[in-house]
């Protein structure tokens, strides 16, 4: 098995702490070099923070595992400087087909809203994602990755965390001002610290298989409810890179995973599904169960939990890795401000609040999908089958068919970092909203709004003709950068060039104005993670400063 991907083996290097026989010190240590730990490490290193990333293994994810990376994740990866390779390698699909028993009941074309840089999602094996993230990480001189470094003990304190790390050359101690825990669903560190994670286990098992097709097969997502080749269960088929197809079979609870994983058991299942004449080769098989649960709090003093270590969901909707990467998007700018002494540690409480809110939304949506796909009672099965029966003919029923609601970012509407609207706006770009993308034109060649923003606080100020910006307004906008927490002003316009010292962003297709309901004078304050913090119809520097203070717990 396993032929389309050559697994890299990363070199173990004897750590200096062992060579020199002394305790190490790093401002930030991250544990776990999966997609989430790597994203956190790259983000911090890009912000100029030196980081030590520890991993107990020396290769990437074995098997495809996480396969669906959503638009918001790609936008975060753009900010981290590595989405292009993944989008090129990954597979975009728009057509989905839903089958119920023998029949196709309906199909849909996701036909994405026009004028966004990134597609709704790509399918890509997790090992490719990790490989690209590691390549990106290695471009950053202040990011050190140590493979085969296994954390065996953590001692938290008020101002640090001390780690005991085991290597092939023995153990050493390293002290960190901050510890980011990205060590996965079973999180050994969470266990070492005796922290709880609550939720429910779903009594179901799924078989996942990576299959290489010998002949053409459409780039579509096929979902079967109760198919003739696998009665009373569900099956999902979708394509990844290299002509590798991922097949998920629901198995039920009362099966032996070791038996089900055997090729002589798996191959007949796939043959029954594809029809006997289609040639394929099996690459990788696994059986999994899942839980929906989260920690009560993601920050515990100097120890910060991200990704599966903090929260887990059922796989429907691809809300695992996608939400973990969004955790780091939310955390890193806050941690950097706290480490630089520009914000109080309470800002990290808002990391936990905002991402617990997102985790609850993810758990809710993936639980709903699970309950639809695997009904737990007779009446629930009857309703599910009634919906599927009506879906062929009636649009309302199609909307109720839930074979997974793809990961989308949360609208953080209840966050205490938001400044409530005092003016009237149309549309959805309310305080707390994840920003919508749009095509733009800038002097430096930037072509997308979400490539022009992020990594710092910024203010978008709209005027139809940038050249017509009056001197006092230009001065006010320029003054925003002179602060403990600087705000970079960007003039959004249909035409013209802003006065010296200000960036101009031309709204190439009018989508920024449309999506953000811009009028002359409208100003949006943006967080470093591309969420709206505040907005006004008229620029007022004092109100902008107050909103920045609020968004950083400095109010």
């Amino acid at each position, binding site marked *: 098995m396993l032929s389309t991907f050559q697994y890299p083996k990363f070199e173990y290097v004897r750590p200096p702490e062992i060579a020199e026989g002394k305790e190490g010190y790093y401002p930030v240590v991250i544990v776990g070099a999966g997609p989430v730990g790597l994203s956190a490490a790259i983000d911090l290193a890009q912000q100029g923070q030196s980081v030590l990333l520890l991993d107990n293994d020396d290769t990437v994810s074995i098997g495809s595992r996480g396969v669906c990376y959503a638009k918001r994740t790609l936008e975060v990866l753009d900010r981290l400087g590595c989405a292009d390779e993944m989008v090129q390698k990954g597979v975009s699909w728009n057509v989905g087909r839903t089958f119920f028993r023998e029949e196709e009941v309906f199909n849909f074309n996701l036909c994405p809203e026009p004028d966004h840089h990134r597609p709704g999602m790509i399918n890509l094996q997790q090992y490719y994602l990790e490989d690209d993230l590691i390549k990106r990480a290695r471009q950053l001189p202040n990011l050190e990755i140590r493979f085969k470094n296994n954390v065996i003990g953590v001692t938290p304190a008020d101002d640090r965390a001390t780690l005991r790390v085991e290597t092939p050359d023995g153990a050493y101690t390293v002290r960190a001002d901050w510890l980011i825990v990205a060590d996965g669903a079973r999180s050994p560190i969470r266990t070492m610290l005796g922290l709880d994670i609550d939720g429910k286990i779903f009594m179901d098992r799924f078989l996942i298989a990576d299959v290489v097709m010998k002949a053409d097969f459409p780039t579509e997502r096929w979902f079967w409810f109760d198919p003739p080749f696998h009665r009373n269960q569900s099956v999902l088929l979708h394509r990844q890179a290299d002509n590798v197809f991922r097949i998920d079979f629901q198995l039920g609870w009362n099966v032996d995973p070791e038996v089900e994983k055997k090729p002589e058991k798996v191959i007949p299942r796939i043959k029954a599904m594809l029809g006997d004449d289609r040639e394929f080769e099996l690459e990788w098989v696994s059986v999994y169960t899942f839980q929906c649960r989260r920690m009560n709090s993601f920050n515990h003093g100097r120890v910060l939990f991200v990704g599966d270590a903090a929260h887990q969901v059922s796989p429907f909707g691809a809300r695992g890795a996608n939400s973990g990467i969004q955790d780091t998007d939310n955390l890193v700018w806050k941690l950097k401000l706290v480490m630089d002494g520009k914000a109080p540690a309470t800002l990290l409480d808002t990391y936990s609040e905002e991402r617990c809110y997102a985790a609850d939304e993810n758990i809710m949506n993936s639980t709903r999908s699970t309950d639809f796909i695997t009904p737990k009672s007779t009446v*629930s099965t009857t309703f599910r089958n*009634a919906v599927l029966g*009506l879906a062929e003919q009636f649009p309302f029923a199609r909307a109720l068919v839930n074979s997974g609601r793809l990961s989308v970012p949360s609208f953080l509407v209840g966050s205490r970092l938001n400044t409530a609207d005092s003016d009237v706006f149309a549309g959805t770009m309310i305080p707390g909203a994840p920003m919508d993308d749009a095509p733009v034109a800038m002097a430096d060649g930037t072509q997308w709004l979400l490539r022009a923003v992020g990594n710092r606080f910024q203010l978008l100020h709209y005027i139809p003709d940038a050249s017509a910006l009056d001197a006092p307004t230009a001065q006010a906008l320029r003054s925003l950068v002179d602060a403990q927490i600087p705000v970079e002003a960007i003039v959004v316009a249909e035409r013209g060039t802003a006065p010296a010292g200000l960036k101009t962003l031309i709204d190439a297709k009018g989508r920024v104005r449309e999506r953000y309901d811009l009028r002359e004078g409208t100003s949006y304050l943006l967080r470093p993670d591309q969420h709206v913090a505040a907005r006004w119809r008229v620029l007022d520097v004092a109100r902008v400063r107050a909103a920045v203070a609020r968004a950083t717990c400095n109010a």
Partner: protein
Amino acid sequence: MALNTQPNLHEPGKRHFRAFSPGDDFYEALIDTHRDLTDEQSAMVNARLILLLANHIGDISVLREAMQIAREGA
């Protein structure tokens, strides 16, 4: 008025940012209504639910249309 078979679920005072959310909110509430009931109890709940909703809709021509479609798929 003809039977509306387009997506039509919404909730006053609640803002939905995703098109799938109102339908999923309803479906979850529907399944929750049946939680821990026996099949017999569920059948009774469904009957009561239909009677309540029918009275709320009021227009018997709409109800006849819905009843016909429902029976066709049985």
